[in-house]
């Protein structure tokens, strides 16, 4: 009897699995489309894709409320899509079109919609996110801030200034560290001394670490953390050990092939798909594909954004 209840508890509804899968496949296909359009010269500037890291975005953001605040970084497409599913606005933004979410002003790494904000400089948004949490605390709302950073961000001094302040002032902020083991091309072993937990402990911050391969486990873990951050109005740092299958931006991937292969076999998307009927996967994949293709076509027909119409 006890065994059965445990089994039931462990089982997530098919609906949730379907939702997570759709979001993950949407992000994966979107990023693949971005890389394709990039090679065709149809996008401006550079771009930082999150292929392999989709589970982090959907697991964390799937636990948030509309009034919660999300602050992200240069690698933000997954977070943005998990939050908004606004494929059209993001695609048009990357293509510099007038229908872009920031009318082509921000591009890939500078997005804003509702309570979602990103910026392109490493660490720049860390104190800004703390300020947002302080504002919500002072206003007496129970909104929380979720800040996404990477392992490489820990090279920035302002991160440590902020860890000190969020602990001192007990701000309702969850810092999600996506440790993808590389700061652009430099492996973590060459740019990161000590440990994540040591850093958290030094500032008196609650923290934890989790592997990224199982999106359901991730989602449950973050449900608990977010509940605590909200209820206790206090900070938390959670490190997700993850891996990006694509390069940092473009043409800067010098990682060993075997290493990438090793991580691809632990692909969280594949793991989730093993738990789902093939027909359903194909259906969701097709839905996402159509949505992205339509967004590209529509964006291509939009005029380029220019200063005259929106200064």
């Amino acid at each position, binding site marked *: 009897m006890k065994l059965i209840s445990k089994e039931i508890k462990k089982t997530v509804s098919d609906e949730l699995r379907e939702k997570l899968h759709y979001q993950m496949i949407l992000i994966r296909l979107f990023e693949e489309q971005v890389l394709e359009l990039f090679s065709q010269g149809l996008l401006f500037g550079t771009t930082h894709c999150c292929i392999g890291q989709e589970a982090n975005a959907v697991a964390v953001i799937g636990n948030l409320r509309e009034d919660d*605040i999300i602050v992200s970084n240069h690698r933000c497409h997954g977070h943005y899509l998990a939050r908004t599913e606004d494929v059209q606005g993001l695609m048009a933004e990357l293509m510099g079109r007038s229908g872009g*979410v*920031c*009318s082509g*002003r*921000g591009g890939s790494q*500078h*997005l*804003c*919609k509702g309570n979602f*904000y990103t*910026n*392109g*400089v490493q660490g*720049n*948004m*860390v*104190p*800004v*996110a*703390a*300020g*947002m*949490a*302080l*504002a*919500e605390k*002072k*206003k007496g709302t129970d909104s929380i801030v979720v800040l996404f950073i990477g392992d490489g961000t820990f090279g920035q*001094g*302002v991160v440590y*200034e*902020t860890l*000190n*302040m969020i602990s*001192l*002032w007990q701000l309702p902020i969850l810092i999600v560290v996506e440790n993808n083991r590389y700061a652009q091309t430099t492996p973590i072993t060459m740019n990161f001394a000590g440990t994540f937990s040591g850093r958290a402990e030094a500032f008196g911050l609650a923290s934890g670490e989790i592997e990224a391969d199982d999106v359901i486990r991730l989602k449950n873990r973050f449900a608990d953390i977010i509940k605590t951050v909200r209820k206790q109005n206090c900070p938390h740092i959670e490190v997700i050990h993850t891996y990006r299958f694509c390069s940092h931006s473009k043409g800067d991937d010098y990682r060993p092939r075997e290493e990438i292969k090793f991580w691809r076999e632990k692909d969280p998307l594949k793991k989730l798909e093993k738990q789902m009927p093939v027909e359903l996967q194909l259906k969701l994949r097709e839905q996402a594909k159509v949505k992205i293709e339509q967004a590209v076509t529509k964006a291509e027909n939009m005029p380029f954004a220019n200063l005259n119409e*929106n200064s």
Partner: protein
Amino acid sequence: MRYVVSLNRALHQLMSEDERVYLLGEDVLDPYGGAFKVTKGLSTAFPNRVITTPISEAGITGVATGMAIRGLRPVVEIMFGDFLTLCADQIVNGACKFHWMYDNQVPVPVVIRAPMGGRRGYGPTHSQTLESLFLNVPGLTIVAPSCFHNAGRLLYDTVQNTDTPVLFVESKLFYPKQLRVPDGNNRIDHFFVKTLTNHSRIFPSISLSLVEAEAPDVTLIVYGAMALLATKAAFNLFMEHEIVVEILIPSLVKPLPVSDILPSVHRSKRVIIAEESVCYSGWGAELASQIQQAEFDSLIKPVGRIGAKDIPIPSSRIMEDQVLVQAEDIEEEIKRIVS
């Protein structure tokens, strides 16, 4: 009223009228009340909205920016303006970008107060006039009241009205000094006063002149701490050489309030710009360029500029005086251009 009291009262008024106004800074709590006492009494009156911070200038600038994005009106005190270099990324790549970069979706009403300037013997890293480093940052407004402005009123209007980041530059030399407000005859000391309101409406420029001449011999343009030196020079030049100087003192440093400046230039046909900052690539360079583009045909001589020498500011007051512009330097430069 003293300059520091004027600013302090403005902060009291702002915080009592508007619950969205917060103050952040290092050592701002009573009984100390901030390094220059501008924040005195505030933490006692508004304990929940005055936040003393660690020594983390970049961090607190970012925190204030985040608060501003979320609907509050934070005022940050940077203890010495020299430390703005620590805040540079937060100002340049953060606060000043968000409003425009996010397609005007978010206002960012953050006001960064910073005392600037030398002549107190604080040496190379506590005496500079660094706002010129930020002149070519889009999205930033720079305001600097002189002692001829109602400093508190300017601060009040700034915090009340802005939707984008403002660097509010205070003069540490003026803190203990009395504000020079016009008397009933619209005179300050011996000077006739005119208040010029440019497009900004809330950041007036002050015009000072010893005679109400149709055309002054020279237009002298200064801001902030240079204003007192300018009046000293203008007084001496008139008494000893009968040279009539119109002094223009903008409170708006960026963008330049050119509409307050060009009419005087058109009449005097001679311009001297003096600044406390390093002369090289300074505020005066941009101003001279704009004046020459607009009034080249009416100028008799090229626009003259003086500013600090291109070396760090020494601690020794004797050497400090040699590095920074003095009233005599302004007089010499004016005599040269008038001759």
